[in-house]
């Protein structure tokens, strides 16, 4: 391998990273702008962060988003896990292919269509749009993501673990909660986190299905930007980025630690 840093290599890396991160860096930089004008640098300041926390509208939207996210991710995780278990375990029931196709179709369904059809449904059954309908809509479209994540883990799950538990006297329900669930828990947690993130940044479906008093953060940001980008919005986005980045970093550190621990264990095992 040629390890020298040619001019070509350097420029492609710089260009690539600039393409990916320049917009985000700009956003973060301008969130610390003293000036009210978004595109003109007026000196360093954190005043927009302070005013952000006094912006009742934004804070309300954040609270709504958090609640929708937690509730919908939790319900979607339960339903998605059940669907994944059914699809992996009961491989011989009639219409299984159709059923599994239907569970995964929302993955590729355009959000506009999902949102519109849900809106039509809610109107048809006379459900008042608001917090409840947004949550319901988010459960619907995140459930299939959870099902995919959990199913991929279940495929490699060693069924003899469950047989061993039953052989040792544990009835099926007990076996599920004491053996199956703990073993597939990491996949369920990643499924939950995926569902939560998807709910957090959904704009399209939320716009269709939400009503007065249930404005989510992406909706709020979008509507404010249409009136002109304020540094306050930049600050809000910077905080969001920070939260996501910290989450990713913690997850990867935990993963790395586990990996190192596992290697150490295996070496110890070989020594006896």
């Amino acid at each position: 391998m040629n390890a020298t840093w040619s001019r070509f290599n350097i420029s492609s890396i710089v260009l690539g990273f600039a393409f990916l991160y320049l917009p985000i860096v700009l956003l973060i930089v301008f969130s610390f702008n003293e000036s009210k004008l978004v595109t003109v640098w007026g000196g360093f300041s954190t005043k927009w962060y302070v005013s952000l926390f006094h912006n009742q509208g934004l804070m309300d939207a954040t609270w709504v988003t958090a609640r929708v996210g937690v509730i919908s991710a939790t319900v979607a995780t339960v339903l998605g896990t059940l669907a994944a278990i059914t699809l992996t375990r009961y491989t011989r029931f009639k219409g299984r292919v159709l059923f599994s196709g239907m569970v995964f179709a929302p993955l590729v369904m355009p959000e506009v269509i999902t949102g519109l059809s849900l809106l039509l449904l809610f109107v048809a059954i006379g459900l008042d749009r608001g917090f409840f309908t947004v949550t319901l809509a988010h459960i619907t479209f995140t459930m299939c993501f959870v099902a995919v994540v959990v199913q991929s883990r279940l495929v490699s799950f060693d069924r003899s673990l469950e047989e061993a538990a039953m052989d040792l006297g544990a009835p099926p329900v007990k076996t599920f909660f004491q053996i199956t669930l703990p073993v597939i828990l990491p996949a369920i947690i990643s499924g939950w986190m995926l569902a939560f993130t998807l709910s957090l940044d959904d704009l399209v479906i939320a716009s269709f299905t939400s009503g007065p008093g249930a404005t989510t953060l992406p909706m709020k940001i979008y509507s404010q930007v249409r009136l002109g980008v304020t540094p306050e919005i930049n600050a809000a986005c910077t905080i969001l980025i920070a939260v996501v980045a910290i989450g990713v970093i913690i997850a990867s550190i935990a993963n790395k630690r586990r990996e190192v621990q596992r290697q150490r264990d295996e070496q110890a095992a070989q020594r006896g």
Partner: protein
Amino acid sequence: MKSLGSIRRDFAPWNDPSAKPYIQFDKVTKKFGDFTAVNNLSLTIFEREFFALLGASGCGKSTLLRMLAGFEEPTAGRILLDGQDLRGIPPYKRPVNMMFQSYALFPHMTVEKNIAFGLKQEGMPAPDIEKRVAEMLRLVKLEQFAKRKPHQLSGGQRQRVALARSVAKRPKVLLLDEPLGALDKKLREETQFELMDLQQELGLTFVVVTHDQEEAMTMADRIAIMDKGEVMQVATPAEIYEAPTSRFVAHFVGNVNMFEGKVAERAANTTRITGATGAQIVVENAADTAKGADIVFAIRPEKIKVSSRKPADAVNALEGEVYDVAYLGDMTVYHIKLDDGQMVRASALNAARVSEDPLTWNDRAWVSFRPDAGVVLTR
């Protein structure tokens, strides 16, 4: 026939007509769709017996074990354990425990918790569980590994944890599915003897499934040879080896030479056979054969003597040429091509360091054997 008994002295309930069977497969059939895994099979296993189901993969031996454990229900027939019909009893209510081929240790529990799992399910008080777990750990010599998780153990240690977990509940019957399959050769040999000791110590009935004939021969009181969902022969290891009842069994266990032929003449004790190419041999042990019947004479390689000159006193001696010689250290294996074209495999123990009658490629050689050295097979 001369005695071909069991290895354990005074333990042969299968020869005792008054002995009560412990596990009974009664005309059991198991079908998976169109595939018949077990076909109208009947089998009896006795208490405290070490019983092996031996066969190639797909012969139905694992299905038989899984039906006993309760993971599969027979399509037809009954399975009785200690007189009780097991039909409809779920695995978690059966007094049998199983050691899985993959060990199936619970990855999120320590060794201790793994062993305690079954005891907790039956509601044993905590101090008793603790005592039993300690006893089990001592039994498999893993006391200092109690707090470890399965992935922190070596293959041999995992195997012992799986064993301890499956005997912790003191089941009436322990089922072992390829118990030593994942171990390397040396460890496997050690563990075979450990398993036998354990079975004696706990006084349990063991049913082991294996595809490894050496393993079955070493450990089992009796072996059932299975093929295509049916039992071909049930007998002690010595009987299986020395007195197989079919070509399949003779071929399956160990090496064997087969002489095809017809019964030419029957005397009181001996039978003269004419081979396909005209060679004449005289054998014993051909009780139920009529004159002119097509039969096979099966003889093990170590019962055949190879020499460079025709042995003076031999009843059966056939001439040929040395085709191949393999020196294996403890013994030497000869492949002799007889003058009628048949290949004969013979093995000689290297009792002396230097052979008195050295033979090498393309030498003329005589193979000879006693009339009672093999068996006559009709199927």
